[in-house]
C-alpha cells in the first residue's frame, strides 16, 4: 500500500468497527479528498458518517469538538497544514484544554489529520510543517508518520486515543518514499519494506520513537520525509549512523533518543520546518539535557531556512541530502 491507501484503510476499518467514528472535512465526502485519502468512504458509509463541510477550518474543529462531547469520535481533515491556522484558537484554547479545565468531566477525542511538508511545488501555502506550534501546547498529542505501515497504525491509535491528536501527513511521502533528490525517478512504496501494510486492524502506539537504522557513530533524530533524506545522506557518507524516527512529537520518547545519543556521543537533529524555534530546538535542548556528559560534539540542527517556503527555490529551501551531509560531517569532525 502507499501512504494514501494505508490511511484510507485505517479510516475504513475504524468507520467499520466503531459507529461513533465520523470523518469530516472539505471535499472529503463525495469527492474523496483532494489527496484521495477518504476515497470511497462516503459511498461505503453514507453521507452521515463521511461529511463534506463548509470551508471554515475553525468551524470544522469547533463542531468536531461538539460532536466529540456528544460521544462521537470525529476525524477531521484540514486540507493543507498551511490552512490549519484559522482553527488554531479552537485547537489551542478549547480542544487542548477541555479535559483540564473541566477536571475530566468533558473530553473531546478529536483527531485532526492534515497533509504537511514541501516537495510538491506547492509554494508558501502548500508546504508548511507547523508541528512546533502544536507541540508547545499542553494537552495535544502530535504525530507524524514517515511510512505507510506506521501511518495506518498510528492513525488507528490516534482515533482510539482518549486525547486530541494532531496527525501530520508528509504529503511528499503519499505516493512513495522520497530521499530528497527531486531529480531521481519516483520510487513506489511497494519497493520499501514499510510499504507492506497488513489489511487488518493494528496499532502503532503513540509516544514511541522507532530506531529505523542501528548505528554506532552518530545519532540522527528526525521524522516525516526527513527520515528518508537522512538515511540517504548517512549512506552516501558511509557512516554507521543510528537513525531514529521520532514519530510522536508529543509525548516525546526521549528515553529511546537519549539512550542512542549516550551511546554514539554525536547527534544531528533534522526536520523540514523552519529552524528558528522549531521542534528541532526542543529535540536539541532535551538531548543536551539528557546526554550532556556523553556529547563529543555540538548537536547540529538541520532544517528549512527561516523564510517562507518559496515556490521557485523549493530545492534550495528543502533540507536535502547535502544539508544533512554537511551537518553529519560537522558533527563527526568536531572533537
Amino acid at each position: 500500500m502507499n501512504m494514501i491507501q494505508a490511511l484510507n484503510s485505517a479510516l475504513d476499518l475504524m468507520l467499520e468497527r466503531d459507529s461513533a467514528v465520523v470523518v469530516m472535512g472539505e471535499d472529503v465526502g463525495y469527492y474523496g479528498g483532494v489527496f484521495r485519502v477518504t476515497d470511497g468512504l462516503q459511498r461505503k458509509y453514507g453521507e452521515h458518517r463521511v461529511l463534506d463541510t463548509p470551508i471554515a477550518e475553525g468551524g470544522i474543529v469547533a463542531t468536531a469538538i461538539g460532536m466529540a462531547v456528544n460521544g462521537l469520535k470525529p476525524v477531521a481533515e484540514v486540507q493543507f497544514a498551511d490552512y490549519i491556522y484559522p482553527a488554531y484558537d479552537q485547537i489551542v484554547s478549547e480542544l487542548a484544554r477541555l479535559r483540564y479545565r473541566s477536571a475530566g468531566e468533558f473530553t473531546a477525542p478529536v483527531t485532526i489529520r492534515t497533509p504537511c511538508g514541501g516537495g510538491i511545488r506547492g509554494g508558501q501555502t502548500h508546504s508548511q510543517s507547523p508541528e512546533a506550534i502544536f507541540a508547545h501546547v499542553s494537552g495535544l498529542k502530535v504525530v507524524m508518520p514517515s511510512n505507510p505501515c506506521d501511518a495506518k497504525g498510528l492513525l488507528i491509535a490516534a482515533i482510539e486515543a482518549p486525547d486530541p491528536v494532531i496527525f501530520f501527513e508528509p504529503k511528499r511521502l503519499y505516493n512513495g518514499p522520497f530521499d530528497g533528490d527531486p531529480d531521481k525517478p519516483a520510487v513506489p512504496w511497494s519497493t520499501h519494506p514499510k510499504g507492506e501494510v497488513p489489511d487488518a486492524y493494528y496499532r502503532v502506539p503513540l509516544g514511541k520513537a522507532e530506531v529505523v537504522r542501528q548505528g554506532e557513530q552518530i545519532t540522527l533524530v528526525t521524522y516525516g520525509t526527513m527520515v528518508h533524506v537522512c538515511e540517504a545522506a548517512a549512506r552516501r557518507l558511509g557512516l554507521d549512523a543510528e537513525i531514529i524516527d521520532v514519530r510522536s512529537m508529543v509525548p516525546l520518547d526521549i528515553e529511546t533518543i537519549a539512550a542512542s545519543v549516550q551511546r554514539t556521543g554525536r547527534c544531528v537533529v533534522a526536520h523540514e520546518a523552519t529552524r528558528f524555534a522549531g521542534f528541532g530546538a526542543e529535540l536539541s535542548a532535551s538531548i543536551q539535557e539528557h546526554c550532556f556528559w556523553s556529547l563529543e560534539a555540538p548537536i547540529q540542527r538541520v532544517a528549512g531556512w527561516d523564510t517562507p517556503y518559496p515556490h521557485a527555490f523549493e530545492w534550495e529551501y528543502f533540507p536535502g541530502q547535502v544539508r544533512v551531509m554537511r551537518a553529519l560531517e560537522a558533527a563527526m569532525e568536531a572533537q
Partner: protein
Amino acid sequence: MKPHSRLHIPQPPSRPGQPPDFSYLELSAAGGVPRPDVNARVRDLDFLASGLVRVLDEQHQAVGPWHPHLEPAELQVGLRHMLLTRIYDERMQRTQRQGRISFYMRSLGEEAVSVAQAMALRPGDMLFPSYRQQGLYMVRGRPLVDLMCQLLSNTRDMCRGRQLPVMYHWASGRIFSISGNLATQFPQAVGWAMAAALKGEDDIAATWIGEGASAEADFHHGMVFAAVYRAPVILNVVNNQWAISMFQGFAGGENRSFAARGLGYGVAGLRVDGNDFLAVYGATRWAAERARTGAGPTLVELVTYRGAAHSTSDDPARYRPRDDYERWPLGDPVERLKKHLIALGEWSEERHAALVSELGQLVTTSWKTAVGFGTLTDGPHLDPDLMFEDVFEEMPAHLERQRAELAAERRAGVAAGNT
C-alpha cells in the same frame, strides 16, 4: 491629512454625566408580534427579527400569541430561581470585595434569560453558556455549595483549581464547561446538535453568546454550520447593550438587530424582550420545537441590559451614566414577573419578602458550608499535584517528571524559608 473623515464611529446614546437615553431602542407592544407556525419557511419569518416579542403588558397582564400559559406554580418557581440568582450574585460579589474570592461576574438584570430559557428546555437538552448564565445552574438544581466551592478554588472545586471563578461545568446536569475565550462555545453547540441529529436522538443544544462576542469568528462558524446542516440548536445572542466599555454599536447593533443576522444564513431570527420572563419562555419553546421537529436552528436575540459592572475588575461609571439601569425601558425581570404574579393574585409583597429572606439564608448557609472546604487564601488547599492531572487521560512521563520536580522544589522552598 484632511481634518474631516467620513469614517463612521458608533456612538453610545449617553456617557457619564449625561441623562440615559434609550430612544434608539425599537419596541413592539406586548402581544404585538404574531407567532408563526414552528414549521413556517424561514423566508416568511423575517418580521420576527425586527419586532420585539413581548407578553407582559404595562398592566402586568400576559397577552398575545407568545403567552406560554404556565401554571402559577411554575411562575413562582421561575421567580424563585431568578431571585436566587440575583441574591447569589450580590453575595458573591461581596465576598470578592472582601478578598475571599479572586473574581466575580454578576448577571443583574439578565436573570430572565437563563432562568426562563432553562425552564423552557428539557433536562436532556445540552447547554453551552457563556459566563453570564448562572441562572441555568439554579434551574437545573446544582447545589449552591458546589458553585461556591468552584469560586473558592477549594478542596471541593469541581474544576480542581484550574479555572477562574464562575467558569463552572456540570456534565450530568448537561451544562458545558464555560470557557474564558469568548464565543468558542457557539459552534461547539452546533457540533453537539449535529451529533444528536446524526444519532437520531431527540435532545437539542442551546448556546449563549454576548452581543459583543458575536463579532468573533465563531459566531459565523456556528451560523454557517447550523444553517448548512439544519442542526437542532438554539443560538442565543444576549444583547445586554454593553461589552465591557463598548456599546452594542461596536458589534454592529446600530444598523440592524442581532436577530436579523440569522436572515442571510436562512436561519430564523427572533427578537425577544429579554426582561419579560414569559416572552423568553414562549420564544424558547417555539425555537425548541422548531429544532426538535427538524425545522432547524433559530437565532434568538434577547434584548436586555447589563445592570451591573462587567465584572469585579470593571468600573462602569467611567463609561456610562450611573442611573442608566433604572431608566432601562424594559424594566427589571424580577420586578415584572413579581408584579404579574401579584396581578394574578398568586403572589404578595409579604411572600416576596419571605422568599428573599429564605434565599438569603440559603446563600448564607451554603457559603458557610463551602468555606469549610477551604478558601483560596486560607486553605485547606487542593493538592498541587492535581495540576499535572487531566492534561491527558494518562499522565505521560514528562509530566510525571515535572510533578516530581515540583515536589522537590516545594521541599527546597520550605528549606530555603519560603512558604
